[in-house]
């Protein structure tokens, strides 16, 4: 990305190195942020192509393209790659680019560790991807890898999968430490906690969540490793273990993990909506408290993923009530965004389109989440396509649209060029239609009784599956357009001013576009 090169006259004694070493040894937050984003997009296409295989097999009833064994590997790898390879690194990339500029710092607090935490990721995913070529195939037990299917009955590649999870866990933890150190230590004078931009706030809370739960994930895969290779029986009933314990530990990690994937998007959208409404964010303080409340509640709701395992009624009720409670702070956020738009002066450039779609579709995902929280109803919804529809509604228009909105919002800042607005709007509309076509019918399929993770289905599910597959192909193909738009924007285009969006607020817009290699050489004053 040549455009990132410092064009700021007079200060080029700290410009980037040349060639490949620039990327291998870089400690610069912008270079590392770029690498995270590029890596994440590559993984998005990789995991997305697996989704295409899944949808192609499900296009019609019967087995046409892949064996059920390979189908299970596809669903597993799709989930793992999208969660750990696409969404999480994308947010770390955004954090790397934006946090120093938003808090008025020259760089991240721990630049060398930053380099290390990025370069671990390709290693982890190389190992994970290599399992596809191993004898016995890749992990085939779903991204939730429930024991004993993943332990006693797992393929030989499970040990490599565990190793890969360990490495990506270390990478995430180092990334989180860096974020916390940057936010706590490098804020510009005058920027108190309650003056921090919301993206900074949401990332601070996300980083704490990461530090709290990634080690638990590491713990649970370590226990698996010991069960598989060292003869322990944490999760094996025959040795006195308990398979349900696995689910408790996994979801203790897993539920906060879903907020790790959405909170930074909340933050970014809280910048974009005010910018294009030309009106300050409504209820800043309540936004911060709501994110905090969501993060805290996320630790006491994990068993709502396990309503059918036979938890006693007192437990069911507790987890049902706690889960329903999450709707309150989430509702507050949605109301605040709507109130921000209310009586603004709205324009609809690509970032705003993605942000508005985010609010609408994420809310729909929230509604189905609320329905799933009702334990008796969950006995019908659980492990059906209704759940698949639900989490794709919170992750695709939630996390992914949040990332696209952020990318379009900040691309002019990053590259110094405006992106092609027409193409970007096309990207939005095709994504929006494709995504809804792919995932909305899944609600109907689930309610009609189609279980998830099946390679073939009964005839009454045929029509909606075909619609869904068509939508998925459309959504998938559209993402290549995004690649084109970004490449075009890097290579040239209309010069972007320091503040390309009329209503945007924040320190990052006081820097020229593109910003100097070291963002703030002298800390700005925040009033």
């Amino acid at each position, binding site marked *: 990305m040549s455009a990132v090169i410092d064009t700021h006259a007079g200060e080029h004694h700290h410009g980037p190195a040349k060639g490949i070493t620039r990327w291998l040894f870089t400690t610069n937050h912008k270079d590392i942020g770029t690498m995270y984003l590029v890596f994440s997009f590559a993984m998005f296409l990789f995991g997305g192509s697996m989704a295409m295989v899944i949808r192609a097999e499900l296009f019609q009833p019967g*087995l046409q393209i892949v064996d*059920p064994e390979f189908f*299970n590997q596809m669903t597993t790898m799709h989930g793992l790659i999208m969660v750990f390879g696409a969404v999480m690194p994308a947010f770390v990339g955004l954090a790397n680019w934006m946090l120093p500029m938003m808090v008025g710092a020259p760089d991240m607090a721990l630049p060398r560790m930053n380099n290390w935490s990025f370069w671990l990721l390709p290693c982890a995913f190389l190992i994970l991807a290599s399992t596809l070529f191993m004898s*016995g195939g890749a992990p085939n*037990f779903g991204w939730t890898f*429930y024991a004993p*299917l993943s332990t*006693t*009955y797992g393929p030989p590649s499970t040990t490599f999968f565990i190793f890969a999870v360990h490495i990506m866990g270390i990478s995430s933890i180092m990334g989180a430490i860096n974020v916390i150190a940057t936010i706590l230590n490098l804020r510009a004078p005058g920027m108190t906690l309650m003056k921090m931009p919301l993206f900074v706030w949401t990332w601070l809370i996300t980083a704490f969540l990461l530090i709290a739960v990634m080690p638990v994930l590491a713990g649970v895969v370590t226990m698996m490793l010991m069960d598989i290779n060292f003869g322990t029986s944490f999760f094996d*009933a*025959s040795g006195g273990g308990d*398979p*349900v314990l696995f689910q408790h530990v996994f979801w203790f990690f897993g539920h906060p993990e879903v907020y790790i994937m959405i909170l930074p998007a909340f933050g970014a959208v809280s910048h974009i909506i005010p910018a294009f409404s*030309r*009106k*300050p964010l*409504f209820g*800043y*303080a*309540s936004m911060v408290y709501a994110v905090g409340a969501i993060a805290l509640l996320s630790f006491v709701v994990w068993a709502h993923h396990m309503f*059918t*395992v*036979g938890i006693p009624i007192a437990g*069911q009720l507790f987890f049902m009530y706690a889960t*329903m*409670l999450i709707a*309150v702070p989430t*509702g*507050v956020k*949605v*109301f605040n965004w709507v*109130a*921000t*738009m*209310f*009586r*603004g*002066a*709205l*324009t609809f450039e690509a970032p705003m389109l993605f942000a508005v779609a985010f609010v*609408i579709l994420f809310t729909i995902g929230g*509604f189905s989440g*609320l329905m799933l929280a*009702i334990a*008796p*109803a969950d*006995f*019908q919804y659980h*492990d*059906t396509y209704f759940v698949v529809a639900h989490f794709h509604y919170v992750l695709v228009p939630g996390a992914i649209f949040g990332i696209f909105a952020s990318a379009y919002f900040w691309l002019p800042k990053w590259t110094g060029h405006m992106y092609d607005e027409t193409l970007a709007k096309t990207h939005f509309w095709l994504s929006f239609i494709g995504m809804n076509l792919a995932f909305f019918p899944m609600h109907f399929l689930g*309610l*009609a009784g189609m279980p998830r*993770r099946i*390679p*073939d289905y*009964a*005839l009454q599910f045929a*029509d909606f599956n*075909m*619609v869904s597959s068509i939508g998925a192909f459309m959504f998938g193909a559209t993402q290549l357009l995004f690649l084109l738009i970004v490449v075009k924007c890097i290579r040239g285009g209309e010069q972007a001013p320091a503040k390309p969006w009329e209503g945007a607020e924040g320190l990052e817009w006081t820097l020229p576009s593109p910003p100097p290699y070291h963002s703030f050489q002298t800390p700005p004053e925040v009033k």
Partner: protein
Amino acid sequence: MGVHAMRAGVLAGGLLLPAWSMADWTLNMTPGVTGTSNEIFSLHMTILWICVAIGVVVFGVMFWSILAHRKSEGHKPAHFHENTAVEVAWTIIPFVILVIMAIPATATLVDMYDTEESDIDIKITGYQWKWRYDYINDDFGFFSNMATSQDEIYNRAAKSEHYLLDVDNPLVIPVGKKVRFLVTANDVIHSWWVPAFGVKKDAIPGFINETWTRVDEPGIYRGQCTELCGRDHGFMPVVVKAVPQAEYDAWVQDQLAAAELERQLTEKEWTLEELLERGERVYATACAACHQANGAGIPPTFPALKGNPVVTEDLPAHLDIVVNGVSGTAMQAFGPQLSEADLAAVITYERNAWGNNTGEMITPKQVFDYKNQQ
């Protein structure tokens, strides 16, 4: 309600797409046939309409802003950015709505957990990839395998009406009786689900779960395994036949008589042709999913049987593997699952099919002796 309108709309939109005569455009959950499933359905509808109402208000305001408060319409932005009263209201009101929703949900849950005073107890055991039903009170049980043929699945034959949702031996229960299910699993976690009953329970190896149902309407009800349990997770349907009490009693007597007949089959003198014919059927339900109908398997996970030295030469090893399974692989012990007649038939079939023409046969009596003299 608008389901009909929605259905019409979707149908209109779907005209361009080919539709099978079998397929339908079901949009919503069905109320089912039990008290539980009806309660769940009404909870589902209540929550759905509450969500729709909230959605209408929130999206209504939003779309109003999108349409009316555009810069291109010359709208000038206001500058307000907080309002304590409003913020408190939209925290309290959702909370109250949640409490209202929690009350019926709690009542339904309490009812679903009340397994007391059952008339019949049935143990359900999940296996990779079939169900076993044991009638505890009457001391008999059987396996329930999917009956859909591999030809239908691989598109070599037309798909039947209950494609993937048909089994060889359905679970039979009497109507109007409280049936208590004790659910467990042999290998990995499975989940037993019949949507029409509103019953879904995980089957966990080494642990026992309980649930119950009372079906008042005779009929055949279909469901599936809903917890990923390996390769053929999508191919282990649940079929329940609810019949009047008298019919149920007769069926139980038939089952007991059939078990006796099975014992006699072991003693019978069999010819190679009889064994091959029976063996082909057993192979199709018990073996073909992994080792494939043509015996080619899916190496390396599922070895080929065609031309395999264990099958063509080493009879004792062949018998041992089929009866006792191979630990740590997907090859399970069929000894406890199949009758002696079925075991003998399928082994004989494997040794003579697909060009494995060994001409050898093994009788049910030999299998019986083997199992007892190992």
